[in-house]
Structures are given as C-alpha cells and as structure tokens.
C-alpha cells in the first residue's frame, strides 16, 4: 500500500522549472486584457515602478506558495495513517530546522525589501523636469481638475499631455477620497486642508479610467473619472478649445449682433433656463479662472466622454435622464430635481451640448485608445 514516490533528487531537479512555469501561468490567469482599469499593464512611469516591485514579490510568493503547499500536500499523502500503524516517532522539534526556516524567509524578504525601499524613495520625490501642475480636488462624488499654468478648471476628464510629468496636488472639498488611475499611478488619499502629492508621466496617448478608492459615502461606487492623455498638439488644442468655449457668449437679444444670429434659438433658450432655473448657483460655465462651486464646472461638458462622474456615456438621452431627475439616476447627489418640463430639458441639453471643446478631443482619443 505504500505510496511509491520518485526519488527526492529527481523531484528537486524539476521543482524550479515547475515553479517558474506555474508562476507564469498564474500571472497569465490575471492577464490584463479586457480590463481597462488594470494595474497589470502600466502606461506611465509611476505605475511602472510599482509594477516592478509587485512582479518581484509576486514571483517570489508564487515560488514559495508552490513549494510550501507542495511539501504540505506531499506530506499529507505520504504520512496517511493506516489501521494498525504503530505509533509514529514522537519527535518534538529540531533546532537546526527552526533556524533554517527562520533564516530562509528572512533572506527572501530582503529581496523584496530592497526594491521596496528603493521604489519608496524614487516615487516620493516629484521630478523637477518642468512638470505640469494639476490641482485635484475630490468632491462627493466627482473630481475637479485645475490647471494653474493655464488658469483653467474642468471636471470629470483630466487632460494631460504625453511626454510631460504631471504633478498632482490633491485635496478634498469634503470627505476623504482616494485618487486612483491604476494604469498611471497608485492610490493617493486626499484629506481636507492638506496637499497630497502624486505624479506620473505617460508616453502613451489614451483614455485611462480611474475611480475613487476610499469609501466616501452613498455614491462612492460612482465617483469615477478619466485621464485623457494626448500628444502635445492635441492637448494644446483641447486647452485652447476649453478657453474658447468659456469666452462669454453674447446675449442673444440685440438683433444686430452677428454672434447672436449664429446662436441656435434652442441653445439660447437653454442658456436662459440655465440662469433662470438656478443652475448657475452651483455650476460655472467658464473654465477660465472659475472658482470651485458646489457642482462640477460645465465648460466643455458637451464634449466630455461621460457624465455623472465617469459613469454614463455623454449622450443626449443620458443628459436628459439626468436633468429630469438626478436623484433617480444617482441617488444621494447634491443636485435636486428641478422639475423641468420636457421642453426645458431639451433646451438645456442643447445648451450643454453647445458647451463643447471643438474638435471633441475625448472622442478622438477614445477611438485611438480603443485600438
């Protein structure tokens, strides 16, 4: 009945190869394809640094896992008790073994600790190569992005140029949140009255989804955003477009104004409603030098990829649903039900759609990233 086992030497010979194969397979099981928010396919230097440490520790952990579980399972078969077995040898321990299995894990840990400490210090310092400062503010439940260099502010989509370090200075307007775009950088919590820092530089244009990672109340799950990374020409076009859409639109009343005639009457109606229905109380529609308000800044909202904080595609249908009853779409948001009629909603949607950065950079980048 004794279990026939291959000799120890033969086992030992193929253990490393087996461990390596299994480690590769295990990582392949977590393949990042089809996960737009994956941590396993870094697209910026910060995330790349984190990933290297993760891979090192993951490989070591996988090897330890298969060795220890292997020994355990082997022992469970090998020392299976049979009826009539004599009492096994009553060993109480082995000082030498205790030392060995204390020292070996310690040595393995050194191999994790060294890159860990190196990376901690590497990621702690923001590079000084003329970074683009973006001030990030978390709000229940949306993200605000401010570009002091251009005196611009936006929400929902954070546009960044490729090839230039982005220096994020982060805080919150209310409770603690955590800023997380897994493909670009790790998490950084934001605290009231405190500036937290994070940085990254990506060379790859694309749309990178991100999401709040610290529980922050009712709609924590719907506090997403996108980082839109664009080459410098597209980025310049975006920020100039955002500044342009923020230029005050002439009042539609004087008939002799050339600007006024160009305005779609529906848009004009929407613009009037925007003021009359108190939308302006919470939302600014100029990106240039606008203060932080209760609701997200809406300059350029017409061409953003999503509404309701990175959740719903920015379509007219979704905008209509939202305006008709925000609480029904996203319970708990601060925006009240304004009791808009269908007509008013149509006009407001037309107006918001008119607040587009032309050409819509998000859409272009989306297609690019889709490939």
């Amino acid at each position, binding site marked *: 009945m004794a279990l026939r086992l291959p000799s120890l030497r033969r086992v030992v010979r193929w253990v490393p190869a087996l461990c390596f194969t299994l480690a590769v397979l295990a990582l392949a*099981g977590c393949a*990042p394809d089809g*996960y*737009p928010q*994956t*941590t*396993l396919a870094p697209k910026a230097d910060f*995330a790349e640094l*984190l990933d290297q*440490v*993760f891979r090192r*520790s993951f490989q070591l*952990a996988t090897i330890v896992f298969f060795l220890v*579980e292997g*020994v*355990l399972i082997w*022992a*469970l078969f090998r*020392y299976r*008790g049979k009826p009539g*077995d004599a*009492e*096994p*040898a009553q*060993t*109480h*321990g*082995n000082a030498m*073994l*205790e030392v060995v*299995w*204390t020292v070996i*894990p*310690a040595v393995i*840990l050194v191999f*994790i*600790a060294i*890159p*860990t*400490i190196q*990376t*901690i*210090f590497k990621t*702690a310092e923001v590079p000084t190569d003329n970074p683009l400062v973006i001030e990030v503010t978390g709000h229940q439940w949306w993200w605000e992005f401010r570009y002091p260099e251009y005196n611009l502010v936006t929400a929902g989509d954070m546009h960044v140029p490729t090839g230039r370090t982005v220096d994020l200075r982060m805080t919150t307007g*209310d*409770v*603690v949140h955590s800023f997380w775009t*897994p493909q670009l950088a*790790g*998490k950084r*919590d934001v605290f*009231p009255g405190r500036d*937290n820092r994070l940085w990254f530089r990506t060379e790859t244009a694309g749309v990178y989804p991100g*999401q709040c*990672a*610290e*529980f922050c*109340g009712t709609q*924590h*799950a719907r506090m997403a955003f996108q980082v839109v990374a664009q080459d410098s020409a597209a980025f310049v076009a975006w920020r100039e477009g955002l500044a342009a859409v923020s230029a005050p639109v002439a009042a539609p009343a004087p008939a002799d104004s050339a600007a006024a005639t160009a305005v779609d009457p529906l848009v004009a109606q929407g613009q009037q409603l925007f003021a009359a229905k108190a939308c302006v109380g919470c939302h600014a529609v100029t990106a240039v030098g606008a203060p932080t308000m209760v609701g997200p800044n809406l300059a350029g909202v017409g061409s953003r990829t999503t509404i309701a904080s990175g959740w719903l595609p920015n379509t007219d249908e979704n905008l209509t649903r939202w305006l008709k009853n925000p609480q029904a779409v996203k319970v708990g948001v601060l925006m009240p039900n304004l009791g808009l009629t269908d007509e008013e909603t149509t006009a407001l949607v037309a107006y918001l759609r008119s607040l587009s950065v032309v050409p819509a950079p998000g859409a272009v980048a989306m297609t690019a990233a889709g490939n």
Partner: protein
Amino acid sequence: MSTIAMGHAGAEAAPAEKKGLWSWITTVDHKRIGILYGVTAFLFFLLGGLEALLIRWQLGAPDKTFLSPEAYNQLFTMHGTTMIFLGVMPLSAMFFNYFIPLLIGARDVAFPRLNAYSYWVFLFGGLVLNSSFLFNAAPDMGWFAYANLTSKQFSPGLNVDFWIIGLQILGIASLAAAVNFFVTIINLRAPGMKMMRMPMFVWMSLITQVLLLLAFPIITVALVLLMLDRSFGTHFFVPSGGGDPVLWQHLFWLFGHPEVYILILPAFGVVSEILPVFSRKPLFGYAAMVFSGCFIAFLGFGVWSHHMFSTGMGPMADTVFSLGTMLIAIPTGVKIFNWIGTVWGGSIQYKTPMYFALGFVAMFIIGGLSGVMHASPPADLQQTDSYFIVAHFHYVLFGGSIFALTAGAYYWFPKMTGRMLSESLGKVHFWLMFLGFNLTFAPMHILGLNGMPRRVYTYSAGMGFEFWNAVETAGSLILGFSFLIFIWNILKSLKSGEVATADPWHGATLEWSIPSPPQEWNFAVEPTVDGRDPLWELRRARGGTLPEPARVSGKGIHLPSPSYWPIVTAFGTALTLVGFLMHVTLWVILLGVAITMLGIFSWAFEPADH
C-alpha cells in the same frame, strides 16, 4: 506520574441536571456560558453570512439594482462589523470559555460571575448594534469608519452613533473577559502545569487576552473622541476646527491591527491542538510556536500604519512600517513550517477536524503570502482598497479563522455535547466549504489587480469585472449551502449522533480525561501534570488504554452559586451607553447607572453559598 481521575469510584446518582431558561440566565458555569457564547455568535455569524450573500447577489452582475446604494453600504459595514465583533471574536470566546478551564485542569474560570457578565454585555451589545436595522439606521461608513465621513456634517443620521455605542458595549464585554481569562490562565493551572507545559491553545489564548487588554482601550478612546465630535461639537477629527482625520486612522489601526491577531491567534491555537492529535505525534517545535506567537503579538502593535500607505506618510514612515510588517512574515512562516513539521512523519488520521485544520494551513499560506505583497508600499499603492485586499483578508479570516474554528467545533463537539458529529456530513461540509470559499475569494485577487475597488455597490459593464464576479457569487452560494449542511449535521447529531466516549480522538490534553459532556465541576479530583501531553503520557504509562471515566457525585465539591446579578449589571451597563446614543438622554443614562450600581452592590454582597 500524572494523577488524573480515571475510572473513579463507582458511579453514584448524579444530582438532577439544572434545567430551564432561568438556569441559563443565572448560570455562572463556564461551560454553559461557553455554549451561550457559541450559539449566540453562530447566529450572528449566520446573520453576517446572510449580509454577505446579499452583497454577492448585488455584485453578481454589473449595474444591478437589487440593492440601493444606501442598503448596500449598510450591509457591507454590518457584514464586517458583525463578522469581526459578533462572529469570530465571540466564537473564539466560546472556546476560551469552555476549554481553557478544561485544558488547564480547573473547575471554572477565576471570576465566574464576571464571565456571565461578559456574555450578557456581549449579547446586549450585539442587539443594540443590530437594532439599528429597525430604525433604518444601520452603520453605513465601513467597519473602520474613516473620519471625516463620520462627522455630523457628512453623516447626520444615527448610523454612526449606533456603531459607536454598539462597539463600546462590546468592548466592555471583551475587556472583562480578557481580564478573566488572563487571571484564569495565570492562576488556576493544575499543579505541575508550568507555563511551558500549557497546551498551545492556552498559550495562544493567553497572548490574545494580552492583545485585547492593550488594544481595546485604544478603540475605546477613539470612539469616545468620535462621540464627543458628533454629540458635543468637539473637533478631534474635524479639520474645520483644527482636528485631523488622519488621527482617526492612526488610532483605529493602532487598535485594528492587533485586532487582526486577536482574530487569528485563537485559530492558531485550535489548529495546534488538532494537528498533533490526528498526526499521533506531539506538536513540532513547541517553544518556537510559543515565541513566534509572542513575537507576532508584539510586532502587531508596531505595524498599524501599513493600512495607511496611500495616505502619503512620507518615505521614512513608509519604509519603517513596511519593514516591520515584513518581519511579521518570519514568525508566521515559523508557525506554518512547524505545523507541517507536526504532520510530517506522523500517522495522519483523516477525521473531519483534521480536514478543516489542514484546510486552514493550506488557505492561511495564501493569505500570508498576499500579506507579504502588500507589506511593500509600492505594491500596496495599487492593492490597498481594491478587491485584492478583500481577497487577502478573507483568506486570513475565513480561510484562517473560520476554517480553524470549524475544525475546533468538530473536534470539541463530542466533549461539549456527548455526541459525535457525523463524519460523512462533516466531509461533505468540508469539501463544499473549501470549494465555495475558493470560488468566492480567489477570483477577488484577479479583480483587485485588474482595478476593481472595494466597497462599491456596483460596477459598470465594460470594466471586465463581470465574469469573475459571477463566479464569486456562484461560489458564495455554495459556501452558504455548506453551512446549511453544518447546521443539519449539528441538529441531527444532537438528536441521534453516535454517543461520544470521554476520549473519542485519543487526545493529549486534560479535557479528554473526563466524561463527555463534563460534569459541572469538570474534575472530580484535581489533576496533576508533568508533561505537555498529559493524557498521552498517562496512556503510555498504563500500557496504551485508559478506562472510561465514570460520572460521579459531586458531593463536597464547592461550586459558585448561580446569580442573576451579572445579567442585571450587564443590562445597566448597556442601558447607560444607550443613553448616549441619541445625543445624550440623561434619564436613560441615570437609570442605567442606577441599575449598574445596584447590580454591582448586590453582586458584591451576594451570599457566597447556600
């Protein structure tokens, strides 16, 4: 030569068993209190499990509206709080209660009435916490309740207050119990049972009591500060008044990390009892096991900030807390290797308790390894607050604690009830639980690494999270089903299970030397001990077999009298704290204090005996 009363003088008619509800309300018998703890905690555990199933059902597919965001947030908060404070901790307390005195050869705990008081306070605390559901105000800010979401401004309802008061009440129960077990272990050991002869479960229990005594005051203070913020307008955690939300995180995790070891060390102890018995050889590396347990507990107080790497503490703090955390992997590894060393060379008896104990070792390895990964801040910046962490701590707390406690339940059920649990049902339970557990929690590693944050009531289609979430939900149903089998096994075995002998497993420790279930006084004659495995030594000295111990008359054995003052005092204690729930309701507080004082005085002057 051990003297353990085996086959004592002919059985005399035992005095009539105490019966009825009143006997349970007034009991001060550690075994009955242990059963009360066990039944209550198991019911709370099932409630927490039901909450988990609702959570899993909501997450089974993207954009589901099965639960509202508010309901989901209440459920995940209550799931965590319930499993930790009302499930795993009191299930451990069941084993402390029932088995510490038996394992050390004592007739009861040091303070039997305090023991009853602990149980009743725990029960009232659990009821207060869960009564929040009746007011639609269950806690909804996560079990670690990060400031400043918990401030009056952002959480105006009673949800947070229920949590504060519930935990304060439960904390009193834990502290009272910790004092009791600490004194019991230090003072009531049988003659000859030196510290280094104590069963490993007793050692791990002792360390757990020390952790409780040192960690719970911290959360008590933190909760008081939070209550002052919410009800009295102070600003400890409110930034607008100069407070600091990060201070809460430090205080919470200074408690919260030792709490992790409070949840796992008893499990280590249970497994360290079971593996030797079913391998038929002593625990490998006893001293190393003791010292690694002490070392883990000691280090456990110095690593709290590894829960806070994403707060941006700076590179020096990150480095120190990272290295400290990695150090814990060493004694933890020593434990795992010693467990493997215990079964190595043994003659393994594959009984149900052994299945669960081995399942514990296999699963805990995974939880330990993922723990090492996020001991490294760079890796943790991606993993923290993602489903990878959810996977990690379920491998530790379910794969670890729950597997081990279930092993303990199968192992000690015969001693507690006099009946064996069904082996065949037990094995079905094990394999379903093992399969369901891994299907539920293993895919969470993948989801977390691929960007799914925790504590989200839903996720969007197109994020790639659909498939594994569906698998997890299916797994959770299997896991839930496995517990139905466990319940069926318990009920069936209680009624018609095989009658247990005193020592059905050929155990090594003193509890197997007395009848199953034990008589009220445990040991008719105080045992003496001169080794680590007293029963094995005795059996060897007697040529391999021991006679079945007879049930004897307890004439002349002094036992503490039943008392209803513990439950009265416990009620007063809970009432006092409930008075703080709705801001401050002075008359409730005064009434609570009056009842508590009455209880304490009557308790103190209660006649010692009849």
